[in-house]
């Protein structure tokens, strides 16, 4: 496909939204297909097109976020002292003791697995993107699509059955004697990578396919080695997409819940598990709004990560303009 019609530079969606009109024009020029040509319209009413998205965003994200924020600062309806009065105790409790440990645990797990996922996923995706066999590319892409969405209890049980204490592989290879335990931080990381790496492949492949062969040839003509090509051309161009992929993986791992719940319980402290314990359990009563405070903490973390990501992404996007 990229032999015939040159695709715009990686991460087309991100580039377009960030560079606005100019980006749209350049994209249209580079891909002279009828659909994109229609986008050349007066800028005046363009914002109208985003209105449905904005409305959806306000209802789907804004309202719940406000509800969470309000709930986090009030007492639960079923708390002993009655509900609805202003309190700071939910927020202060949520950043102390076991909850703080769980928040740090989640960040650690998400940051690490996302990093490994990015580092492992990139060369894999490159190998697949440059593969001459179209069938392999299609197969891996659809396979990745399936695996990236394969989470929750089925995934946990699959690993329990193969690599758990009584798992088939564990017993055949006597892995327990070699110090292997699925029910640890390492074990959980391995399970997360099972869906994070395919997710990375899925995210980064379009960007890799956007790397034009001509750039590589130009670099080679000027005497650059493969390493130099990647160092000075390939990776800088890929950086926004790589960062985006990392953020996506981070978010995916940070919010994952069911797999960990079924597999490790409290032995790997995670914020998502704590929220579930506070929100829907058989033991704790009146903790609903503490769960909202924990949710607010997660939102803050996500916003912080985005706050770091966006300027970086914009900076590297400049090279592409």
């Amino acid at each position: 496909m990229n032999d015939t019609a040159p695709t715009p530079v990686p991460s087309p969606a991100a580039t377009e939204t960030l560079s606005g009109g100019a980006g749209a024009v350049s994209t249209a020029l580079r891909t002279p297909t009828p659909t994109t040509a229609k986008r050349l319209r007066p800028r005046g009413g363009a914002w109208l097109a985003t209105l449905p998205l904005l409305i959806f965003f306000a209802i789907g994200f804004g309202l719940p976020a406000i509800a969470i924020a309000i709930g986090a600062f009030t007492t639960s309806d079923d708390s002993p002292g009655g509900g609805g009065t202003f309190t700071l105790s939910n927020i202060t409790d949520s950043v102390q003791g076991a909850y703080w440990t769980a928040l740090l645990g989640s960040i650690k797990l998400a940051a690490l697995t996302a990093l490994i996922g990015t580092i492992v996923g990139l060369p894999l995706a490159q190998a697949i993107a440059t593969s001459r066999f179209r069938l392999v590319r299609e197969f891996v892409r659809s396979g990745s699509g399936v695996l990236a969405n394969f989470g929750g209890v089925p995934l946990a049980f699959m690993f329990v059955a193969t690599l758990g204490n009584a798992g088939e592989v564990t017993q055949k290879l006597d892995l327990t004697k070699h110090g292997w335990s699925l029910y640890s931080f390492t074990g959980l990381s391995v399970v997360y990578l099972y869906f994070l790496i395919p997710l990375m492949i899925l995210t980064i492949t379009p960007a890799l396919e956007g790397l034009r062969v001509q750039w590589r040839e130009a670099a080679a003509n000027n005497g650059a080695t493969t390493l130099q090509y990647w160092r000075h051309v390939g990776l800088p161009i890929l950086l926004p997409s790589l960062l985006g992929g990392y953020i996506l993986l981070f978010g995916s791992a940070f919010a994952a819940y069911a797999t960990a719940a079924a597999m490790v319980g409290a032995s790997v402290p995670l914020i998502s598990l704590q929220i579930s314990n506070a929100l829907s359990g058989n033991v704790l009563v009146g903790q609903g709004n503490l769960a909202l405070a924990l949710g607010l903490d997660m939102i803050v973390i996500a916003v912080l990560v985005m706050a770091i990501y966006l300027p970086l992404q914009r900076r590297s996007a400049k090279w592409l303009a």
Partner: protein
Amino acid sequence: MTTHRARTAAFAAVLTAAALSLSACGSAGTASTAGASGGAKDAKTATSAADFGGMDALVAAAKKEGTLNAITLPRDWANYGAIMDAFTAKYGIKIQDENPDGSSQDEINAITSRKDQDRAPDVVDLGSAFALSAASQGLLAPYKVTGFDQIPDSMKDATGLSYNDYGGYMSIGCDAKKVAVCPKNFSDLLNPAYKGMVALNGDPTKAGAAFGAVYAAALANGGSLDNIQPGIDFFGKLKKAGNFNPVEVTPATIQKGETPISVDWSYLNAGYTDKFASQGIQWQVSIPSDGSYAQYYNQAINKWAPHPAAARLWEEYLYSADGQNGFLKGYATPALFDAMKTAGTLDPTAVSKLPTVTKPFTTFPTQAQTDAAKKVVTQNWAAAIAG
């Protein structure tokens, strides 16, 4: 994830309701609406069968409603599957059991979020803390079953808002095929032979059964109903010894052999014995004498029950000899155990099959004691078990 599941369940419930109303259109549909508007006012406020004008009238009113919305009743938990089937067979009232694997909090959420809706749960089966909390929030309808006076005072709310239905002891289940010598007491669990084997029914800050296990372990290790910390320390020690297995016990993990030793309610563990006997798993159950701990669940009616008569009939059924023996056949101790023993209505074979209790547990923790214990578990469990 949980809200997602709840939403899926709700969605499924709506679909079912829609399908039902479609298939039962015409005469049946109009009849049920007429019944609801006619008898509902009385049914919603009735506090005993006498308010209906006797059992027969209650049965008739419930039959008119035709459906009972139950929630979070797992079929393999205290024989609920058979009990629900028997109820339907006896009265011809369909039971819609929503979200069978949910928790007490899910039940409360369903009551509060679906007030005055047809798909709200009619009856709930709650952990004690939730029953108290729901009663104080005014979510429950008072109702006294026929045998109400026979339920011991310590096991019921005097006004009939909620009362104990069935209970059991904390027990140790063990796969005798995988484990050479099955542990009998908490002290046995530290044996190095049980590496990676000892599992709980979830996280004690979420699952009532796991919380009970920690309480029992506390009693076994010098703790008391006022001091649950020794129980947490015990599981910390178990973790350090490499014996603790964090996988949540389910029938599937037992079948796979991933949780060969499980500390869980006696009625669940004993139920697994039956369930897996045909599959060659010799599941043995013992009730530890060093950490003897028991707990009851509670039965209550939603104040805004969409099927108020069916809800009350369900309570009557659960506290009839049939219903109580149903729990008993699921290895749970029913609330009317003593009264039925005196009356001679207990099912003798079911009684003989109950796991042996060498040290009876007599004093239940007070609400204050439980609350304090939960706080300690919430703060210290993760730290003791992490790594």
